[in-house]
């Protein structure tokens, strides 16, 4: 099997889907799902293989290379799977809206380009796919119109900013070392001056950080994630921002190499520490901001930034445990954040686009499967033991504490407790509490929505109990990076400094749960009552008078909201405004008066002569 075939299927499939949509809608749906699944299945066969091929030689002097190893397999496979679930989810989500052909094509194009990025073996093809991803994402973010337009423009401007910076980095590397192929570049920076390495680092981090939404570069993410169509939000949040993560790992561990990276700077001003602290800030501030959100998807978007902070923290910290936790958390986050966006999407679908947390409620009675998906999703997000988020978070806390960085650990832990608050708010305000009367007749989510929700929920539990499965892959990636692999078994991790065994936990929780359930079951049965039979000081609960999920964390809101303006966003907006004003000002030199124009010509002539007389240029 050839790697270029995957790309051919992916890109060709995207175009094919568009044209098949002109013929038959059924065929298009089937084709879209089929293509995404086929990519995932083909990628699955590449497990534990490594190969490398030149797939195109026509671009200037650069042979474009594809390669696969465990590292890229891990990312590519995750992306393909999440992508295909999102497409399955889209089947009914998108049916009500227009432009369906366009939607599927762009979706497949985004997935294809992401896989292209992951599989590429040199920086030029990395960049090409990166840009294709950027613009196709842009075209899909604005799909919902209205506020999505501003979101899209914000995204693409930041994205272009990042990618031009990265382009400079790539070309600079090429001009220094004469190659852009990972394997040839790797370790070459060992001899470079640290100033140059930092230059390269900064350039790449602008691009990767914007895509990964590291804190001061995150401003595109909340509007983009919240305004995009929900299945695409799942792709965005679950996989697209992880492309940034992939790039960062690639940069640090493949191109720069771990030994150079760890020796870059000293103590607190080392690259490692600075990036890790940035990661910690990325955890804290967005977590607090997420607490204040009233829009379900915007809340999840801020949460995505915060979780990306964990990943960055883990990857940049540079111990083998932290890197493992970063990659494991990437995997977990892809699953549970995709799941949560799908849950919100299902609710949005049934309630005709309502995402305002203050006007939903009580949907557990109407959409139980979706609710369970949401519950498991937030458990994974929080990292409740026996869900997948737990092990990755445990690893990062542990390595931070053992290696004597308690403040980073504090940030990570506090972020988790903030996560509890906002994720509970999400669940409570959508599914729990009072069911508004207008939603009395709501139906369950359609099957094509329930299917990915159920599978992803099961995956969360599965990888929570058997963290060894992904950790095994991560281990072999780490040994490729020159890090010491962890000692793992299928149930957990053993080491001198701290051991975790999910089997013990699972059995304990399971048995005790069963025990308590038996006690519960054994005692008197309870009568079922509805929400209108509530205690309300003797009165009946009024039906549509008020809604008590509004302002759920009011007291905290009052306390912290003055300190939590997104001043970074304000900064960027004022920057944009001042560029606009500058442009408007500069435009005034074209006064419309031809006399001035003639004077300009003469002035230019005078300037040229002056320069010659002054400096003798030629």
């Amino acid at each position: 099997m050839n790697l270029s075939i995957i790309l051919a299927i992916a890109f060709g499939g995207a175009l094919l889907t568009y044209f098949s949509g002109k013929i038959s809608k059924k065929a298009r749906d089937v084709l879209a799902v089929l293509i995404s699944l086929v990519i995932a299945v083909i990628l699955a066969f590449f497990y534990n293989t490594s190969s490398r091929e030149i797939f195109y030689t026509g671009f200037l002097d650069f042979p474009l290379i594809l390669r696969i190893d465990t590292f890229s397999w891990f990312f590519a496979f995750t992306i393909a799977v999440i992508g295909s679930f999102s497409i399955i989810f889209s089947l009914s989500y998108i049916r009500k809206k227009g432009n369906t052909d366009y939607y599927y094509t762009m979706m497949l194009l985004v997935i294809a380009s992401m896989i292209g990025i992951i599989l590429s073996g040199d920086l030029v093809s990395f960049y090409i796919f990166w840009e294709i991803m950027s613009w196709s994402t842009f075209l899909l973010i604005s799909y919902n119109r209205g506020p999505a337009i501003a979101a899209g423009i914000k995204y693409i401007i930041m994205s272009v900013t990042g990618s031009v910076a990265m382009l400079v980095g790539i070309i600079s590397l090429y001009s220094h070392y004469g190659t852009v192929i990972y394997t040839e570049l790797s370790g070459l920076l060992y001899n470079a001056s640290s100033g140059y390495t930092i230059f390269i680092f900064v350039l790449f981090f602008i691009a990767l950080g914007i895509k990964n939404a590291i804190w001061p570069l995150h401003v595109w993410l909340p509007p983009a994630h919240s305004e995009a169509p929900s299945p695409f939000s799942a792709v965005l949040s679950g996989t697209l921002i992880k492309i940034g993560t992939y790039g960062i790992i690639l940069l640090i561990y493949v191109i720069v190499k771990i030994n150079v990276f760890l020796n870059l700077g000293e103590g607190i001003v080392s690259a490692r520490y600075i990036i890790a602290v940035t990661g910690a800030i990325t955890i804290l501030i967005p977590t607090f901001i997420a607490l204040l959100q009233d829009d379900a998807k915007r809340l999840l978007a801020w949460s995505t930034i915060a979780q990306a902070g964990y990943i960055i923290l883990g990857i940049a910290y540079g111990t083998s445990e932290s890197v493992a936790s970063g990659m494991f958390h990437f995997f977990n986050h892809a699953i549970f954040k995709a799941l949560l966006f799908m849950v919100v999407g299902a609710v949005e679908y049934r309630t005709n686009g309502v995402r305002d947390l203050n006007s939903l409620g009580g949907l557990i009675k109407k959409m139980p499967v979706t609710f369970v998906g949401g519950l498991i999703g937030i458990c994974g997000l929080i990292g409740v033991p026996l869900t997948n988020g737990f092990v990755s978070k445990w690893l990062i806390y542990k390595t931070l504490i053992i290696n004597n960085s308690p403040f980073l650990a504090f940030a990570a832990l506090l972020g988790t407790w903030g996560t509890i608050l906002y994720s509970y708010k999400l669940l409570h305000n959508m599914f729990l509490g009072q069911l508004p009367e207008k939603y009395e007749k709501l139906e369950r989510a359609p099957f094509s929505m329930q299917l990915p929700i159920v599978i992803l929920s099961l995956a969360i539990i599965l990888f929570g109990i058997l963290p060894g499965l992904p950790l095994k892959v991560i281990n072999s990636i780490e040994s490729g990076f020159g890090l010491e692999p962890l000692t793992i078994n299928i149930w957990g991790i053993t080491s001198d400094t701290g051991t975790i065994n999910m089997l013990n936990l699972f059995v304990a929780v399971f048995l005790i749960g069963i025990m308590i359930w038996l006690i519960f079951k054994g005692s008197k049965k309870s009568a079922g009552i509805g929400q209108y039979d509530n205690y309300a000081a003797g009165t009946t609960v009024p039906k549509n008078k008020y809604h008590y999920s509004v302002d759920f964390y009011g007291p905290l809101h009052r306390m912290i909201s003055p300190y939590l303006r997104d001043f970074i966003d304000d900064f960027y907006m004022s920057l944009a405004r001042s560029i606009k004003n500058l442009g408007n000002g500069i435009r005034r030199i074209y006064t419309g008066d031809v006399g001035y124009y003639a004077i300009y010509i003469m002035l230019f002539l005078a300037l040229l002569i002056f320069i010659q007389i002054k400096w003798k240029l030629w």
Partner: protein
Amino acid sequence: MDRNNLGKWLKSPGKMGQKYSLHALYFCTGCGIIEIPPSITTRWDAERFGVIPVATPRQANLFLITGYVSVKTLRYIIRSYEQMPEPKFTVGFGSCPINGGMYWDSYNTIKHLDKYIPVDGWIAGCMPRPEAVFVAVTHLWTLIDKGMADGYNKYRANYQYYRENQEKILGKLEWPPLFSKNIKHEEYRTIA
């Protein structure tokens, strides 16, 4: 007081539990409420007998009707009573719930509380002193022991009657009937 009688505890734990853990719901339904604070605080300390006030009818099994009951209050009394879990006991406090008392000819108080909800015991007087509360509690113990404090069963058995009386004075009630018909020993719908 047989609270420390281990044999009785083993024989009928439910009954003993009911006796010595009376969680009282006391709405400020009338002037009688003024006697409740002394009885639960330092001077008389009802907690020695396991009588403590609770905040919601869900957690309560003793309903104290403290004083006169106006028509408006009756609605809330009925609602709260129906929300209490079984077994539950009602005690009318003062003479007004018994026969109207000094409001015997008032147009908007009810004269006989037991027409609307079943009452297991009465404390006469205007006002009864806190000691009288304890007398009522000990009396209630006896009734529970003998199985005679079964107002909640009566309510179930004669629900039509009560509901009719309630609707006669209150007009149509907002909540649906608690029991569909007069049921003797049938549990209502269970799910857990």
